[in-house]
């Protein structure tokens, strides 16, 4: 039975498909981005109810002002040594990225992903967390390992999939796993780490531990179902976890509008779940540090999860397989109004009288040398596809704790094949 209705006088519906403001060839004007003054946002007590500071999800917490001073209630008041350490870590991330990007271009490995412009997100967070708080990163948080002082050679071995690779050449380059540095194994499948971080945090709480978990994903990845499952579990069990959404504006060629940014902020995702949500200037490492410290204190005092949106910009391509000039204006990275996180912290330290351009240049040189030295060291273990890989039979190890008959058989078959092929 169909119901006939006369709709001839109704306007036709239309489908809204988001469109970024600038495409290749366009002149960029980021004037519409609301950048509140540094120091303007209140800092609630960490015991306050999440529902009492919703406005923090819609504005932006900033500490470093236009004159390179740290201002307002979110200023973490760090000592100069800590500030210099963070600056060094950010500069190291950049030097490491430069070098490894080049290594990929030289055919020494298959793939690389830079975090240029986003260094403050991972370095700031890693500096504010305890070393044994478990991090569940996505692929752009190499800064956590570098801040935690992890070996560059070890990371490079992984990138080269060589015989020194702790992951035995099994993972795509940059998909690190370093349990000793409380750095969880990275997955190529987006956002799967989110519910896992919640599970780890729930376990820590159930065991009466004092360690908390933190996890990261891009703004594009917030669309995945796992993101929403994670938030649901976290709010239900008040899990001691920090959700970081790195809003770097682009998910490969898709701008943030395809993750819902036209309608609201990513920090506001927290509100529907009753989770604390806060949006920070992701290029202001002091804001990142302060927000992480605040969220960590909430987690450690059983106030539950916090979602931090880091408002930042992906300066380079998505990966070595990507060409951003195909889909976005070349003017975007330079027009980005939030500045460069490394430069901003450098200027702050200089304004404090704790740093100068000469020392900075010298540090850059020193870091470039350190990275180069490490690269040479790592390359002694081989580069991808040049024979110095893990023994063939490692391919069959670790599928299960004990290798079943069929894998043993297949391993023998492969070894016979290698022999027949003269390898």
């Amino acid at each position, binding site marked *: 039975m169909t119901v006939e209705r006369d709709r001839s006088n109704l306007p036709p519906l239309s489908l809204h498909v988001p469109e970024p403001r600038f495409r290749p060839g366009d002149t960029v004007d980021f004037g519409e981005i609301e950048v509140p003054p540094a120091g303007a946002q209140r800092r609630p007590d960490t015991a306050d109810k999440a529902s009492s500071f919703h406005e923090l999800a819609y504005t932006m917490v900033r500490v470093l002002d236009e004159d390179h001073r740290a201002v307002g209630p979110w200023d973490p008041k760090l000592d100069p040594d800590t500030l210099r350490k963070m600056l060094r870590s950010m500069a190291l991330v950049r030097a490491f990225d430069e070098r490894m990007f080049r290594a990929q271009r030289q055919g020494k490995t298959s793939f690389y992903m830079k975090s240029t412009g986003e260094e403050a997100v991972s370095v700031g967070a890693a500096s504010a967390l305890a070393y044994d708080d478990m991090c569940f990163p996505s692929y752009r948080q190499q800064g956590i390992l570098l801040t935690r002082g992890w070996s560059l050679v070890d990371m490079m071995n992984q990138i080269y999939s060589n015989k020194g*690779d702790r992951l035995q*050449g099994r993972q795509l380059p940059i998909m690190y796993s370093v349990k000793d540095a409380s750095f969880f194994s990275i*997955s190529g499948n987006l956002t799967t780490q989110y519910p896992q971080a919640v599970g780890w945090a729930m376990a820590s709480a159930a065991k009466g531990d004092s360690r908390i978990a933190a996890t990261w994903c891009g703004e594009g990845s917030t669309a995945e179902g796992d993101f929403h499952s994670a938030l649901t579990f976290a709010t239900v069990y008040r899990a001691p976890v920090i959700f970081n959404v790195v809003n770097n504006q682009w998910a490969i060629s*898709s701008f943030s509008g395809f993750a819902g940014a036209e309608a609201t902020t990513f920090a506001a995702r927290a509100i529907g779940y009753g989770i604390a949500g806060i949006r920070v200037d992701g290029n202001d490492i002091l804001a990142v540090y302060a927000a992480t410290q605040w969220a960590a204190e909430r987690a450690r005092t059983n106030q539950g999860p916090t979602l931090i949106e880091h408002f930042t910009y992906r300066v380079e391509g998505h990966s070595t397989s990507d060409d951003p000039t195909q889909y976005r204006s070349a003017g975007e990275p330079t027009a980005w109004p939030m500045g460069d996180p490394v430069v901003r912290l450098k200027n702050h330290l200089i304004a404090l009288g704790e740093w100068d351009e000469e020392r900075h240049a010298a540090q850059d040189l020193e870091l470039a040398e350190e990275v180069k030295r490490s690269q040479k060291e790592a390359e002694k273990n081989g580069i991808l596809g040049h024979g110095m890989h893990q023994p063939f039979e490692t391919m069959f190890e670790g599928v299960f704790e004990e290798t079943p008959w069929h894998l043993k058989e297949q391993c023998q078959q492969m070894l016979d*094949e290698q022999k027949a092929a003269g390898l």
Partner: protein
Amino acid sequence: MNMIQAINSAMDVMMARDSGVVVMGEDVGYFGGVFRATAGLQAKYGKTRVFDTPITECGIIGVAVGMGAYGLRPVPEIQFADYIYPALDQLVSEAARMRYRSAGEFIAPITVRSPFGGGIFGGQTHSQSPEGIFTHVSGLKTVIPSTPYDAKGLLIAAIEDNDPTIFFEPKRIYNGPFHGHYDRPASTWAGHPGGEVPEGYYRIPLGKAAVVREGSDVTILCYGAMVHVVASTIEELGNVDAEIVDLRTLLPLDIETIEASVKKTGRCMIVHEATRTAGFGAELAALVQERCFYHLEAPIERVTGFDTPYPHSLEWAYFPGPVRIGEALKKVMKV
């Protein structure tokens, strides 16, 4: 045309013929897809027919099911087959059964395109061959082309088909038939008969295999990139007169061609890149055994990838190459 261009052309032809055809997926719009398979389509057909989606595979397929229920013909792209797992519930429990459970009231005429397979150093999450999972699901069709010509004709047929179809594209041969070992350079499709692709509409019916080489010694069943590895191995060996059958559609399967070929040659070998255990080769072996047992002169041989997760640096030792195929041939031919 290379395979990317042929796939692009298939969508172009179908979008021009049928305003219900919509193309959707991560990065498929303005950018034209990370492999450029949808390049130019948005400019030609507009944003409401070719659009980027949020990064949620279950959302992409679920939304496609709804669009199909309305009467459109969505062609969703899953950027890599490795990312189809979050969409499994919508594919398996929803799309596959829509016709059956609603007694035909609703159908899911969707064609899910996805690059699959290894050989490009894509690591664990850009290399897998999950076709066996889908052939195990009642209600889904699974199609895998091995040449640009087939890719276009099969994709057109899949888009016109009223059932949900998984269309796996062997990304390793997007730009040319890769012959199978790391010391051999990839060739291009130029000059290859399968690279001759007409501009306009034509279709290759689903469920029809192609005998790409006739022979009398042994039947080799294969599909996708492996067709080229097998063909070049046979050519190099020179001493086996193999009949090579490119299945093209795994489900529905062209059992007649398979049966006729095996009965003729008396021997059968199966080659695929996916892991071995409970893979599609197991189904093929069972079918051949059931139908051709009294014609077989030797046990059926399976040549496959190994039962490990996909290893990044050792991938050339992982998937079948000329050596593995040659060794298996020796075994089948000896008996």
